[in-house]
């Protein structure tokens, strides 16, 4: 007990009397070590999480209704939509009608009739522009031109990947049209029916399902594709902020909607590989971050070793006057603990009060997602504890190496 007391006293006094700038520098290094440990995996997982969130917000919503496995369309869509209006936790929904079509541009200017036509096979989605925007904020993804108007006809939104100036960086992956701008006329052909549309806007989203799509009002969609049964291909539901997706899904199931369609929360609907990738990136981030732990531990080891070595004579004197070796060792462990704890605590504060909020509002602009910094409090606390314990050892070992030396040799500097 007395050894603990003495160890704490010696350790605290050494910290108090240490050079202020050196102390700040060591704490700064420990803070960076902690950030490296937390932020690397946080960014890697956040990169995927950012993409997942974007898919949720711009494409699939909180709950998604799709056709049953053996059906082409959602059965009794009208009934389902009417029932959705009665569930208070539902903030909005949008029904989508999907098909494939051939889109052609620059056909009026084409002089060489034997030459290649400027066409692209596209996904086409019929939407209620107002409802779609209320759920997925599709209007906010318009990068050129304007969003569809509820009352207008003959207008189309084209996803950026179908326009060559956006897709050329991806080589020949996407089937695209050249030189299409808002105001240009394109021709949509499906089921032998062709109709001209004026390009009203270009959709630019990092969610492929959104950017690799074209949008027209659902009324026109039904006319072109002969879809008079009103059977939707997908219904996407956005919930009120505090609503539970599982609870709402259960409500819809109790209404009997599972007999008409597949009702899933976003979590259920997202592919398993997404969660697998998240786990993989987490492991990868921890692995990379653990290199930071090694660096941090070596830093602490060197600091304590130099500190103990430069105080070797003092250590000898302490032993000479009867201070136990474990008290002396504890003094250095206290210093390592102080540097590690303070640095990690600052790192924790910086992470949760500065970095996470900052990257939430200013995501990192990755090519396929707006990356956020995803740090779970429990995970950060575990990393905090791991770093702390490891630095205690890193502080103890050099102190032990020096303190175990012969007392007289230490005093005389031999």
């Amino acid at each position, binding site marked *: 007990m*007395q050894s603990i007391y*003495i160890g704490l006293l010696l350790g605290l006094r050494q910290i108090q009397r240490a050079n202020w700038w050196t102390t700040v520098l060591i704490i700064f290094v420990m803070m960076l070590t902690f950030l490296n440990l937390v932020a690397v995996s946080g960014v890697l997982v956040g990169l995927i999480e950012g993409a997942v969130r974007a898919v949720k917000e711009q494409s699939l919503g909180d709950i998604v209704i799709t056709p049953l496995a053996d059906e082409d369309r959602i059965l009794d869509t009208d009934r389902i939509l009417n029932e959705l209006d009665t569930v208070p936790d539902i903030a909005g929904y949008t029904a989508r009608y999907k098909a494939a079509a051939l889109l052609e541009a620059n056909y009026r200017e084409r002089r060489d009739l034997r030459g290649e036509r400027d066409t692209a096979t596209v996904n086409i989605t019929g939407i209620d522009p107002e409802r779609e925007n209320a759920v997925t904020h599709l209007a906010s993804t318009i990068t050129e031109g304007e969003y569809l108007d509820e009352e207008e006809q003959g207008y189309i939104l084209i996803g950026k990947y179908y326009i060559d100036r956006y897709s050329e960086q991806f080589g020949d992956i996407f089937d695209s049209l050249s030189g299409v701008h808002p105001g240009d006329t394109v021709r949509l052909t499906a089921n032998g029916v062709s109709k001209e549309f004026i390009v009203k806007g270009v959709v630019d989203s990092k969610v492929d399902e959104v950017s690799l799509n074209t949008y027209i009002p659902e009324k026109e969609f039904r006319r072109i594709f002969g879809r008079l049964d009103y059977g939707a291909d997908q219904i996407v539901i956005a919930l009120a902020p505090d609503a539970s997706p599982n609870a709402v899904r259960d409500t819809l199931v109790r209404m009997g909607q599972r007999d008409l369609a597949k009702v899933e929360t976003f979590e259920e609907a997202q592919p398993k590989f997404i969660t697998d990738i998240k786990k993989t990136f987490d492991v990868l981030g921890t692995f990379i971050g653990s290199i930071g732990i090694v660096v941090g531990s070596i830093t602490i080891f060197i600091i304590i070793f130099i500190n103990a070595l430069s105080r070797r004579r003092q250590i000898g004197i302490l032993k000479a006057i009867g201070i136990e070796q474990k008290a002396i060792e504890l003094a250095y462990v206290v210093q390592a603990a102080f540097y590690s704890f303070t640095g990690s605590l600052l790192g924790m504060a910086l992470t949760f009060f500065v970095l996470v909020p900052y990257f939430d509002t200013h995501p990192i602009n990755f090519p396929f997602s707006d990356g956020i910094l995803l740090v779970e409090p429990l995970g950060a606390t575990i990393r905090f504890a791991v770093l702390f314990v490891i630095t205690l050892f890193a502080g103890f070992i050099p102190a032990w190496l020096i303190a175990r030396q012969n007392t007289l040799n230490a005093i005389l500097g031999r």
Partner: protein
Amino acid sequence: MKDPIIIAKNIHRIFGKEGGVVTHVLKGIDLEIREDEFVAIMGKSGAGKSTLLYQLSLLDVPSEGTLSIAGTDVLSLTESEKTSFRLHNLGFIFQDYALIPDLTARENVMLPLLMSNHTWEDSKNAADDALGKVGLGHRLNNHPNALSGGEQQRVSIARAVAGKPEILFADEPTANLDTISGRQVIDLLGELHKTGQTIVMVTHEEEYTRDCDRIIRMEDGKIVA
């Protein structure tokens, strides 16, 4: 006459290993020091006086011989037991004061007291008392770097005697001090001796031995007088 508190027999100290350079510093020292005695060990540089002090004070281990302090066969103790023995039975004054620079004068004196299970308050009172006796009652909260050499050595004396050790070892305590400060330190040791403190002091200055009961003179690793 009181009983011997230190009994050293046939103490040898040899440095170096067979096959290399071997230095035989102490050559069969036989020595008894009685309780309450103030003994000065003198000799020329290289005579082995400091080495003998280190053997007697358990800071070093003789290559050969037996050593009993206060009835304990101290050479049979483990390192940890020796540390504890030093804490409870021996006090040290080093040539260069050997204070802990991060601690105040009071904390330097308190340190061994705290280690030997005194409470903070008791240690503080004892430290203040000891520092008062060496004339440093007004320098309790000063760190060593704010004290003169003489003051630091007096703190060192206060630290050595605060725990009331049975034997006080002093290794050339005046070597780094000016004449006045050196005299003050010797006077302090003389006063301690008058209270019954056993003191073993290494010095090469004859003038500082006038309070001593006995002078042991060494030459070439042997006691010659």
